[in-house]
């Protein structure tokens, strides 16, 4: 079996977890206006896992990532990384945004060197590691350009390089390829797959694309409509396949059907919520 249902928050997984989310909830607003974005959510991620979270729009998956990143505080429960509770943003958690988070007033090299500089690395050393990281993502020839001069795909490479250069303990990706065209997205997905295998980084990846999740992730979480909670979790082995065209195999299609079935009813619920507003 290429995918199998598992429990994500077993005592075993918790014990050896890199990132541990326990009873995490988030409510926006107060009183009659209050909207619960996240119902109690339990997820344990162990070192080196690539956990993709899929769910209908507005299910709180971005809220979940924002809490782990430290941009938002949970209303209840706790998020713990490497044994330390998460309080505010920190350089040990690298974040890649969908788009629009690069600094247009800095060259590509300065953008990537920003992290090491902010963490106290000397200017020369910071530029050197930025240069090396940019070469790794195939942008060695664009270091002097400004982000707005690059295509969307190249901008996302800069975003990834910028997050990786700090060597974070975990990489948080918030639908990083959602705004790209199909070809660019597939290319970058292949590269991320290779990069993850090479570095063994722990990754938390938010997406609305089931194919993307199946192709990249070692673990997949399906979330319910708002308020979001874990509906089902899977161990997924397609990312281990050396075949880049694994997405066209019957097993892949069967796995996609299974998750799509789970997601369909949630998407309908999400639609109803939206039309009620």
């Amino acid at each position, binding site marked *: 079996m290429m995918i199998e249902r598992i429990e994500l928050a077993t005592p075993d997984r918790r014990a050896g977890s890199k990132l541990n989310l326990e009873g995490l909830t988030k409510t926006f607003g107060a009183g009659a206006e209050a909207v619960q974005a996240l119902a109690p959510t339990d997820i344990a991620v162990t070192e080196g896992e690539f956990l993709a979270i899929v769910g209908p729009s507005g299910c709180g998956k971005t809220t979940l990532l924002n809490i782990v*990143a430290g941009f938002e505080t949970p209303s209840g429960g706790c998020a713990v990384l490497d044994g330390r509770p998460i309080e505010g943003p920190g*350089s040990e958690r690298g*974040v890649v945004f969908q788009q*629009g*988070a690069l*600094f247009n007033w800095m060259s590509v090299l300065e953008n990537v060197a920003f992290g090491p500089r902010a963490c106290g690395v000397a200017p020369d050393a910071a530029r050197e590691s930025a240069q090396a990281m940019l070469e790794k993502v195939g942008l060695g020839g664009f270091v002097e350009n*400004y982000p707005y001069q690059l*295509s969307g*795909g190249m901008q996302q490479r800069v975003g990834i390089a910028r997050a990786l250069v700090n060597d974070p303990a975990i990489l948080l990706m918030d639908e990083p390829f959602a705004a790209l065209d199909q070809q660019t997205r597939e290319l970058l997905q292949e590269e991320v797959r290779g990069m993850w295998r090479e570095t063994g980084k722990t990754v938390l990846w938010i997406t609305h694309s089931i194919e993307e999740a199946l192709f990249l992730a070692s673990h997949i979480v399906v979330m319910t409509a708002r308020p979001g909670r874990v509906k089902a979790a899977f161990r997924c082995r397609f990312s281990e396949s050396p075949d880049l065209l694994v997405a066209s195999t019957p097993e892949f299609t069967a796995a996609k059907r299974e998750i799509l079935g789970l997601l369909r009813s949630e998407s309908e619920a999400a639609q109803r919520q939206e039309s009620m507003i």
Partner: protein
Amino acid sequence: MSRTDILAEGEAYDAGTTERKATRRDRWLTGTTFLAFFLVWVGVTGAGHWPPLIRPIFLPSPLAVWQAFLALLEHGYQGNSLWYHVGISFYRFAFAFSSCVLIGVPLGLLLGMNRTARAILEPPIQAIRPIPKLALLPLFLIWFGIGNTSKIIIIAAPVFPLIVIAAMQAVRSVSTKKIQAARCLGAGNWTVFSRVVLPACLPGIFTGIRMAISIAVTMLVAAELTATSDGIAWMSLTAAEFLSTDIVLVGVVIMAVLGFSLDRMIRAIELRIVHWSGHE
């Protein structure tokens, strides 16, 4: 390098050359507008070759204005040289304007960053803004006398709140994502401010400054309306009393040139510093 990225690069190049061609065409059209305007002026005033459609007392010919300018250069106006009048006006304008920028921009940034400061200072600034500042002129004369102080203050009165609010709005509209990105890269408060918030604000601040220039030039005329005996606007105003329309026009042109060249100068600085303007 992926194929799609290279394609995108090529498209960007083509867009660049088309853009340059369009800019050249725009310049031509702008030049033609000015030329047409000038020719109409020559036409209706006769230029000495045919009887003027408009009498010189209402609209002197370009030549007459030029001659008036040369005469003013040589003999000055009412006891002072033309340069003295230009200089004193420029001093009032420049002092008021640069004080507004030097104090207003940091204050606006503070208001944008700090909720407490905003609660204390924004309502009074917003309350003062809609008051027509010309109405305050008599009050300023009583408070600050007839010297340069009252003139500088009347120029600064509308410019200052405009610049403060432009800077404040610029801070408020900095994308949260960029600040979050800086924070999760390890940046502290000062780094976030100096390397992210401040540069991100610059386009908005420059827009505010350029908008303020035309208002400041207008207020210069108001400042020299009463209780003065020098300045370029005062020269125009008193010349009008004697129906010396040519001198009035010399003053008008000098003030127009002042406003226009300042705007161009700041635009040039803006293009140099804020090269990413228009790209969020």
